[in-house]
């Protein structure tokens, strides 16, 4: 019988302290805590957690090694399936994936799989454990567009298989959304993101930054002129949505993408960096997803009083429960069942408030959530200096518009099958560019599937 103890709690930075800094909220387990938590795993013969993991990490096996104190072996098991464990251990929605299907969760609390993964990854980094085993080069070149989770996962598997992989990244740092989107206090850039990107480089993957695929080069020039046998497009969903309501172009209205990019990629919170950011005294964040929570908690740390405005109720918030909980602990206000109808400006063209309409919940919509319905004539104004629009993102149309024959759907997403095959021969795609904005781990899963399909495509071409 396994150890019937409660889930080992994880240490976190005090909310009153962390609301004033950008250091990581969660400290993670130490080795004693991790080994103790690992004893809770039932070591199921048919583990449902593995099936619920988009990259199929061999969860019971690595947890057993943690329990035995053989962290290097645990790390090797994870590395077979994931190149970004320190990232995933931090940002995966484990509650709806591995931990959500853990048998222990039926009656009590599931094994803290995410925290264990994070512990193993952090231990490996601190102890400089690296996995650089790759098959000998087969001389075949594959191009990967975008160095976010999908691209990194695809590049990793192809490099291990012996391909010469070059990733083309438009920004000046590799990592995609891990760099520009997710804040430092959830995902440290220097220690975690850069290290895991460097681990991918250590497999022989080249990363060329500052390349705009669709402008500097095109998919066709990569295939025809540069000798790449296949291309994987993992360009993400980077285009911000706005509400198209009056006053949205006033000074002080920004997209969550702009706000987070200034702070994360450009490090505006650090006075030694040049990029400016503006929060004023009061910030309103419109939206209820993880990005909205990230923007709200970033604005709070920059010194503003922050309110999240969401048109449904807390129950329907798309953000992870953990993020909402952290945001509340830190003192973020939530204004539910509220929808902005106009941004109000002063005589100089700066935001001074938002006109909102009260909402109520109606019947469930196609997403299964109860849909918000405006309450007639129930308008009110609220004061704010800055409005951050966090309404989701859609894929950038640049690549599709410069690649003849590459089909997209009405949401501008690239059309691809389950293996990532697009409507163009030799061109594969996966991650947010195909699905629209989703999670890091789903993008990684898509990158891995596409890597397998690319291997099969190139191998069959040779014959």
């Amino acid at each position: 019988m396994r150890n019937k103890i409660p889930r080992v709690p994880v240490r976190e930075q005090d909310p009153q302290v962390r609301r004033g800094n950008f250091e990581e909220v969660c400290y993670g387990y130490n080795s004693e805590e991790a080994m103790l938590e690992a004893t809770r795993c039932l070591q199921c013969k048919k583990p449902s957690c593995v099936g619920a993991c988009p990259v199929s990490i061999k969860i019971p096996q690595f947890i057993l090694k943690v329990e035995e104190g053989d962290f290097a072996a645990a790390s090797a098991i994870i590395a077979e399936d994931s190149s970004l464990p320190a990232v995933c251990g931090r940002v995966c929605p484990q509650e709806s994936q591995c931990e959500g299907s853990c048998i222990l969760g039926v009656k009590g609390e599931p094994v803290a799989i995410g925290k264990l993964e994070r512990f193993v990854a952090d231990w490996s980094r601190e102890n400089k454990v690296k996995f650089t085993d790759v098959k000998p080069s087969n001389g075949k070149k594959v191009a990967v567009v975008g160095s976010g989770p999908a691209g990194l996962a695809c590049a990793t598997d192809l490099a291990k298989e012996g391909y010469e992989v070059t990733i083309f990244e438009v920004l000046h740092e590799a990592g995609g959304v891990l760099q520009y989107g997710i804040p430092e206090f959830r995902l440290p850039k220097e220690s975690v993101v850069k290290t895991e990107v460097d681990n991918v480089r250590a497999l022989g993957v080249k990363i060329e930054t500052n390349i705009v695929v669709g402008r500097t080069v095109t998919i066709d020039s990569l295939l025809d002129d540069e000798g790449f046998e296949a291309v994987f497009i993992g360009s993400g969903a980077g285009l911000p949505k706005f509400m198209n309501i009056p006053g949205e172009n006033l000074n002080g209205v920004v997209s969550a993408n702009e706000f987070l990019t200034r702070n994360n990629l450009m490090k505006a919170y650090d006075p030694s960096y040049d990029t400016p950011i503006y929060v004023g005294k009061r910030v309103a964040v419109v939206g209820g997803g993880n990005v909205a929570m990230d923007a709200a908690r970033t604005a709070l740390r920059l010194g503003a009083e922050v309110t999240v405005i969401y048109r449904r109720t807390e129950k329907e918030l798309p953000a992870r429960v953990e993020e909402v909980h952290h945001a509340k602990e830190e003192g973020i206000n939530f204004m539910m069942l509220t929808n902005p109808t106009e941004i109000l400006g002063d005589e100089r063209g700066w935001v001074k408030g938002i006109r909102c309409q009260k909402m109520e919940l109606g019947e469930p919509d196609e997403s299964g959530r109860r849909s918000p319905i405006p309450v007639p004539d129930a308008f009110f104004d609220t004061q704010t200096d800055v409005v951050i629009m966090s309404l989701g993102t859609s894929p950038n149309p640049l690549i599709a518009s410069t690649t003849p024959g590459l089909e997209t759907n009405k949401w501008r997403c690239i059309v691809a099958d389950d293996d990532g095959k697009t409507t163009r021969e030799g061109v594969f795609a996966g991650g947010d560019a195909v699905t629209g904005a989703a999670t890091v781990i789903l993008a990684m899963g898509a990158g891995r599937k596409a890597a397998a399909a690319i291997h099969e495509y190139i191998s069959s071409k040779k014959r």
Partner: protein
Amino acid sequence: MYKILKKEQLTPIIVLMEVEAPRLAASAKPGQFLIVRAHEKGERIPLTVCDYDTDRGTVTIVTQIVGASSRQICHLNQGDSFVDFVGPLGKPSEFTELSDDELKSMRFLFIAGGLGTAPVYPQVKYFHSKGAKVDVIIGAKNRDMLIFENEMRAVADNVYICTDDGSAGEKGLVTDVLARLMENGEQYNHAVAIGPMIMMKFASLAAKKHNLPIIVSLNTLMVDGTGMCGACRVTVGGKTKFACVDGPEFDGALVDFDEAMRRQGMYRTIESEADHKCKIGLGE
């Protein structure tokens, strides 16, 4: 790293640089822009592609000191490198789609303001090489801010110079020259204005008055320059556009310049703390 192969001080505050960027040089087209970072902690600064040489693999940029970041750029020397130099960004000028035959029979009027003269020059050179007729109005604050005068004279049919203080050419604004040309019955197929927002606003108003179609190139705020941030939002014909991916060139008659100028000032308070003094008349 992107090495500066040549640096030329055009005026005390305007600098021309030829930068080694082979991929960019091979893909750039007139009307597009690029983004540079001078150092690891620097801002991403959008600049118009002023010229490019595919054979040498170089791209020419021209920068004027207007704030802390442009000062850092201007203070780099020949042999130094930019940490980042990315592009080309934005759509090429729609005139690049015209055939040589079409261009041969066309006549253009370019209106260049200050630093905007730099990106105008290669376009004029391009049109001239295709057999089109091109006149150019160059407006500058004073003689010290006047650039590319001789180069322009070599490729344009007529060059009209005006300065705010009369220290070079005639004393007056580009719109005065434009009005006079129109009143004299000069005929053009199209005008193109590149320069400070305020100049493009009044050039567009004047062109509209004379039913002259006009294209402007908007130098809005940007972070990534690829459509991600939306800092460059501009209202064109009542619709919100992103200058970085929908532009940077737009129909001047349709642009809401007052909003665009106001939005340019979004970070000015912060910038002025970081040693910003506008020398081109914006925000005055």
